[in-house]
């Protein structure tokens, strides 16, 4: 029996909930999950091999067949593409003599695309064995290729290659008023638990992860249970295990503010979680950290240890009798795990498939117990409110959106980075501050959000106008809108978890339909068909991913219908068959892609 696997399982107490953690280490050790390991783990953890295989095949960072000893992934976010990712990647492949998506014959290196790695302000970016590479240039690629070919261990690579900047450009309410470790908890016990929840309620703090649910109410529901149980005995409430989860999956392309918050203000985030735990009476918390942020792991563990040593975490916090600790769980490359119920499934060591609701996580979350899931920024704001009071926060912002919002500004501007604004700030202000010129439009809230044109810059950041989890991508007039949309649609088709029909099949149909139109193979009815497809995906999908996946098309189709129409062929009939498309398999088999291997649908003279 393999000692490494035995020890690893033991270290994880043979807990099936730790499957992701275990698989991450196996993948790092063997560059894939070998069959023999699957058999051994099934035995040790007492779960079926199919469970393990399905988890491996669900997450992008796990593989059944070996990747290279140096496994390189390049971020395919729109911002990386705008910074020249495509040609850099080709160059990288040439330098390393590897085919994109494959492993080099000697097994030393593999190169592939990955979804946005959250380095949009310092791209083009990538990952090598999980660690971030930023600001890629040809000289850097030369350097990296040499290091790899000389088989220099990662630890000995120049640290400059892995350098990640915080780029905090404009602090406001939260970033200007950082609290000292322990201050929020002291304020909590001084004021009282219900009184502090009342402050958060008065602050009208809404979730910063995108949906904007009232935070105090979420915590209240988690503690009280559903209304019908609200008056059950306090003793019964006490018996229940509850959990606090911080959502640091941050997978929305163009977002990176949670990375910065966790790098620079981890204490305050953990303090917010501890505050929540005291209020809802939870003893266990989790930070679900996206796999792409592996580089933060050790540092965050150190912060947790520091907090344990200062009595701010662990048993009997501040001698007030409350026990609470936080575990960090790393994701493994799946955007859907940012959806709270998929995240909980993932925490339980399963595929990240969104649950049916009701029940909601506040009543039945982690292991079926009441669970609060909040965004990193939400916990950070809650800690600040505990210290400064609800009024301090509610003074700022608009009627329906109190406080400030931290933005990840990237794309075409002089100073990408982190900007914080009171809610109600017009888009134009942001554009002026970050040095954006000749702007075509802005994608607010990432691909799942909305594309606004340069006629709309008086609109405001606010839940009631332009809501965003933080992603703010700027495009100048040289950008091609359809290419942007295409990048986003590919992202969703790639990230769809596949649970429900409308999203699983629909996002791929959408991808193909858009390609058809962009390639000039569309005819009169094809834009109508495109929109119809968008509507059904939006309306009938199971979760937020599918419900927003068509937004890139819908929001640009609404603003620039002519862009789509111009792509259509002017023929009176609708070709039911794509002649050239049908040759795709033949081309692949013959390994040809020259002009002679293509046919046009319509003789040029008829067009």
């Amino acid at each position, binding site marked *: 029996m393999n000692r490494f696997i035995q020890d690893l399982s033991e270290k994880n107490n043979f807990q099936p909930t730790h499957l992701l953690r275990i698989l991450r280490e196996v993948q790092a050790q063997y560059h894939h999950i070998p*069959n023999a390991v699957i*058999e051994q783990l099934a035995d040790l953890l007492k779960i*079926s*091999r*199919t*469970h393990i*295989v*399905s988890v491996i*095949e*669900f*997450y992008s960072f796990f593989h059944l067949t070996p990747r290279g000893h140096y496994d390189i992934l390049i971020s395919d976010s729109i911002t990386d593409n705008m910074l020249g990712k495509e040609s850099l990647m080709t160059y990288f492949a040439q330098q390393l003599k590897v085919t994109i998506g494959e492993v080099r014959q000697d097994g030393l290196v593999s190169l592939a695309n990955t979804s946005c790695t959250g380095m949009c302000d310092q791209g083009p970016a990538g990952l090598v064995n999980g660690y971030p590479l930023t600001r890629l240039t040809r000289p850097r690629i030369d350097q990296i290729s040499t290091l790899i070919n000389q088989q220099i261990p990662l630890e000995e690579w120049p640290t400059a290659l892995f350098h990640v900047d915080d780029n905090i450009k404009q602090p406001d309410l939260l970033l200007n008023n950082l609290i000292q470790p322990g201050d929020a908890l002291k304020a909590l016990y001084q004021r009282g638990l219900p009184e502090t929840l009342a402050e958060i309620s008065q602050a009208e703090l809404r979730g910063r992860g995108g949906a904007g649910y009232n935070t105090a109410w979420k915590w209240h529901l988690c503690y009280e249970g559903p209304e019908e149980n609200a008056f059950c005995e306090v003793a019964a409430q006490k018996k229940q295990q509850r959990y606090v989860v911080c959502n640091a999956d941050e997978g929305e392309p163009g977002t990176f503010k949670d990375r910065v918050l966790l790098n620079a203000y981890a204490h305050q985030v953990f303090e917010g979680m501890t505050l929540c735990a005291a209020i809802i009476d939870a003893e266990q918390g989790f930070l679900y950290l996206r796999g792409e942020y592996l580089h933060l792991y050790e540092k965050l563990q150190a912060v947790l240890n520091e907090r344990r040593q200062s009595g701010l975490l662990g048993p009997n916090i501040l001698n007030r009798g409350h026990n609470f600790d936080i575990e960090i769980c790393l994701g493994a490359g*799946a955007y859907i795990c940012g959806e709270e119920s998929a995240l909980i499934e993932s925490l339980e060591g399963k*595929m990240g498939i969104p649950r*049916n609701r*009701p029940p909601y996580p506040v009543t039945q979350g982690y292991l079926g117990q009441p669970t609060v899931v909040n965004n990193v920024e939400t916990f950070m704001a809650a800690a600040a409110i505990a210290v400064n009071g609800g009024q301090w926060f509610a003074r700022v912002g608009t009627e329906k959106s109190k406080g400030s919002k931290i933005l990840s500004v990237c794309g075409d501007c002089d100073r990408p980075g982190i900007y914080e604004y009171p809610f109600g700030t017009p888009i134009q202000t942001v554009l002026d501050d970050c040095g954006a010129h000749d702007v075509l439009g802005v994608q607010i809230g990432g691909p799942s959000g909305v594309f606004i044109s340069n006629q709309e810059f008086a609109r405001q950041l606010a839940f009631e106008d332009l809501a965003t989890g933080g992603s703010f991508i700027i495009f100048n007039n040289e950008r091609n809108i359809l290419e942007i949309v295409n990048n986003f649609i590919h992202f969703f*088709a*790639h*990230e*769809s*978890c*596949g*649970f*429900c*029909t*409308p999203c*699983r*099949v*629909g*996002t*791929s*149909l959408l991808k*193909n339909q858009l390609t058809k139109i962009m390639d000039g193979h569309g005819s009169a009815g094809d834009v109508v068909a495109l929109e119809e497809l968008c509507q*059904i995906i939006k*309306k*009938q*999908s*199971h979760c937020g991913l599918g419900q927003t996946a068509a937004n890139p098309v819908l929001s640009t189709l609404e603003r620039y219908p002519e862009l789509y129409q111009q792509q259509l062929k002017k023929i009176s009939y609708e070709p039911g068959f*794509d002649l050239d498309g049908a040759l795709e398999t033949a081309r692949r088999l013959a390994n040809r892609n020259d002009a002679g291997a293509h046919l046009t649908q319509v003789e040029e003279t008829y067009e």
Partner: protein
Amino acid sequence: MSNSITIDGKPIPFSEGQTIMEAATAAGVYIPHLCHHPEYTPHGSCKLCNVKVNGRICSACTYPAMDGQDILNNTQELTDDRQKITQMLFVEGNHFCPSCEKTGNCQLQAVAYHLNMLDDHFPLFYPTRAVDASHEALMIDHNRCIFCTLCVRASQQKDHKDVFAISGRGLNKHLIVNAQSGLLKDTDISMNDQAAHICPTGAILIKHTAYQVPIGERLYDHKQIDQVSLASETLKHDK
């Protein structure tokens, strides 16, 4: 206090804990579905049973019935959407009904008839999928799998085994079996298992029985799926 919901304007009683699907079936109202089966934990993935509850789309098989819900089921809008969802299932796999031995007994085909689906509407994917004929009495034709997970649930919940699972993400989803070889013959499935007989399409088939009932005399050749489904499922929901 009597609990009641309305479906397409018709008042329907329900008891505490019932889903909309259960209440509807008990009252003789058919809501199209493929991944739902009254004997197993609802899954909510095919989305054919999506109904409008007070204006919001919800899956009838998982959504609890609650007093006063105003539900739309048999509307043109929902029928159109259900038809398209069914078409998506058709183009995603390889469903050649005329040459499929399950024709006439297939729920996917029957639902398509019920929804008056006359073509595929969407371009076909023509995926390359395998057939596992390793087992002496059973076979899996992956071309026809619609990922309803009924075999997965039947094996776990009725047979108390764990023969099947759905693996992969997105369009790469696929059915896998619990054997080191990955072949059905090496699993502990038996002919008497519920899982061997539950497949709504022709993805899991019993060998050597294909044409015992001739085409033209099969279940859905004479009856619509709503009749068949209501007749067989009312009892099961009730128990």
